[in-house]
């Protein structure tokens, strides 16, 4: 566990270094590289000078790095010129929506994936297994944003069951349970798109470890003891098949966050994905870097959490 933490720390330091050096190593004026040509042109000479001295761009690199780190420790990610606000405040407002979206999708895809994986492994080779595999693999073959578009067109545009975008109905005046319901209704399609994209990995992983477990002696013992089928399936074999899935959870979280970037754009969902899209279009470099850093940090944290979870589930890891 300690070694792992060191790895994560190293990864994080690398990300910070990358974030710091990338704009500064680009040819030309670093102020232009950080703020972009368009912004730099709208800045007055005075403002440029102020920014240069504020960021220490006229000082040696180590000093600049010191200033950058101090600012970071104070939660100062710079200013987004296109949104006229501090990067942190913008990111802070959108991150919860992405966490809600990605979190729901991860929980759903893990839960569903495990059940389908167990069923598929238990019924290996028979019709049910083949159907599950066919559907799961078929669905995951589609990139998540295509899936999002299809869901939106079918259930949003044609059938009209769900909203066409956004995270809630603007100015509905709803509160309490009605508001929760509204948010949930807006969440259904994007979460489904993300869940479907994530599903196959979990299903296949659970299925293969299920197949391994089913051959084990403790399963035969359980069968021999005359235990009920569902207890063997879920309580014995299934439980052990959870381990590889939890171990992969960190990686899945990273993938889901990346996937959310596209899905959010399709559904105009006000999260980090839409924000990234905006930052790219308006070439708001400080914003992009802030998003990059926060996303990376989130993914590192998700990995740490997944490790902790695996650690709790598997006594063997604790003995190590």
């Amino acid at each position, binding site marked *: 566990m300690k070694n792992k933490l060191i790895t994560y720390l190293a990864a994080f330091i690398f990300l910070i270094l990358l974030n710091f050096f990338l704009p500064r190593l680009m040819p030309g004026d670093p102020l232009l590289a950080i703020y972009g040509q368009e912004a730099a042109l709208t800045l007055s000479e005075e403002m440029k000078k102020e920014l240069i001295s504020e960021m220490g761009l006229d000082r040696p690199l180590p000093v600049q790095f010191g200033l950058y780190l101090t600012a970071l420790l104070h939660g100062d990610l710079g200013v987004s010129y296109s949104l006229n606000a501090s990067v942190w405040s913008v990111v802070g407002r959108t991150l919860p929506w992405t966490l809600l979206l990605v979190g729901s999708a991860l929980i759903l895809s893990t839960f569903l994936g495990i059940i389908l994986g167990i069923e598929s492994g238990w019924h290996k080779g028979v019709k049910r297994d083949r159907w599950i595999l066919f559907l799961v693999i078929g669905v995951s073959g589609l990139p998540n944003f295509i899936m999002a578009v299809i869901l939106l067109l079918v259930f949003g*545009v044609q059938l009209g069951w769900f909203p066409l975008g956004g995270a809630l109905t603007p100015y509905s005046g709803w509160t309490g349970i009605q508001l929760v319901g509204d948010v949930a209704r807006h969440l259904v399609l994007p979460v489904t798109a993300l869940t479907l994209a994530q599903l196959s990995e979990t299903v296949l992983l659970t299925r293969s470890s299920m197949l391994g477990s089913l051959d084990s002696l403790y399963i035969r013992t359980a069968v021999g003891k005359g235990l009920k089928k569902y207890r063997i399936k879920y309580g014995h074999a299934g439980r052990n098949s959870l381990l590889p899935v939890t171990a992969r959870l960190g990686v899945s979280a990273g993938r889901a966050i990346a996937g959310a970037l596209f899905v959010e754009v399709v559904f105009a969902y006000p999260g980090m994905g839409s924000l990234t899209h905006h930052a790219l279009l308006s070439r708001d470099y400080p914003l992009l870097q802030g998003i990059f850093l926060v996303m990376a940090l989130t993914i590192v944290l998700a990995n740490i959490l997944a490790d902790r979870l695996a650690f709790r589930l598997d006594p063997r890891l604790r003995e190590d």
Partner: protein
Amino acid sequence: MLGMKDRKMVWWLLVLLISGLLFTGCSNGADQPADSRKPEEVIPVYTIADAAGDWGFPSPWGHYQRGPGYIRMSLIFDTLVWKDDQGLVPALASEWSYDQDNKTYTFVLKDNILWHDGQKLTAEDVVFTFAYIKQHPYAWGDLSSVAQVSSEGEQTVKITLNSNFAPFLNNVAATVPIIPQHIWDKVEEPGKFTELSAVVGSGPFRYVDYNKEQGTYLYQANDQYYGGKVLVQELKFIKANPQMAAASLSRGEVNAAALQPEMAGQLQDKYTIIQEAGSSNVKLMFNHLEEPLADKEFRQALAYAIDKEDLVAKAQRGYGVKGNPGIYAPGNRWYAGDAVQYDPNGQKVQELMTELGYELVASEGRANPSWTKDGQEVKLNILCDSDLIRVAEVLQERLATAGFSLEIQSVEVKVRDTKILSWDFDLALNSHGGLGGDPEILSKFILVGDFNSARYDQNPHLVELIQKQKTIMDEDERKEMVQQIQKLYAEDVPVLTLYYPNSYWAHDGKIPLYYTSEGIAIGVPIPLNKLSFVQ
């Protein structure tokens, strides 16, 4: 069951949504006659969809600098004069006049104008606004032409200019939002002033709410509006993908939205479609500082080799208007129809190139002969970004048959802009808006400026005319001069306007939306003029 048309629409949506993930453009527009049919009864709620949603807190210093930000502010704050689809109309000022000898504009304010908080708006507020903006620069208020502002009594304002400045009414009087002195005189940092009182204006709508992360705005009709009855009780701006505009309209969730060009045809039976072209352009920039493009004749030869209509058809899928080498699009009131058009003409290319000492030489492995001089084949690079790569490809193909070999260099936009700024290119493709406003832009796009400008000052006559037209207060005289500029510019062709992309809006007809003559304020081509919402 879905009809044929609906199914077709769904397919279009699929294509658009997927392509929309890869690129997003901005909407533009500017001339369509207004519909005089206004609703008899007040509409309870009117909702406008917008792709980006968030355009900043709608105070003058809070909104983002681009057009949609200004529009949201303009619904709350009024200016001295305003524009409708025909031209200038009274706003806070009922009348105005210009005294050429003293270089002074006199504005007479209307009676009984109230701020949203009930206080009376007076000439003092106008004087204060100009002084405040001089102290706290506002991106949409370039007051460099203004020498002095004073009031005479409660209703008269005198604005003295440094020198005659023809764009004043458009770019200052119809652009600068007047702010209440009793609120702003205590504000030191206007950018950070986001309290409710920061959005107390005198316009047709009162501010109710702005939500940055959802990208939504909620306004309410100002029942005491001096300009007439406000036709919409609640005005909402919501964020929605432009690809969903059609579906949102048909569900009745929005009343108006910008459209992808492909959707316009599908929707025209059910909704009112308004179209605009000419406020933005795609242009081919020449590096006129270096050989061979420093030769005017060489640039002209290239211009004659390009088929702009073919370009519109292939690169813009037909949704655009062929470019006028004199900058302005046909339909713009400053447009000079007699500027040289460079319609494709192989013979002209031959003549011009031969005159310059080039000859067409066939080379092995090439389908077409190339222009060659002193054993050197003409090879040009063409700089573009990923958005314009299709244009570059069409040009490459076309020019190859005319003997010019192009090498496409597609780079990230910022890199392209830097390269254009440092003249590190032969040919470059660029696109920008801002063509709809006052001809003051001519200086910005021809003489000086950034990567959007030709930065061409080699023709002293052209330079002189561009400087001079700004000071001509007689409109006809100025128009003549602006047309002369276009002719000279087209003749020298330091940049070739290739085409003007179309932009579209669809609405349900409840409010007759229109594109403002010469754009809102300094030229915003968005059909959301506040006067559409007022009886």
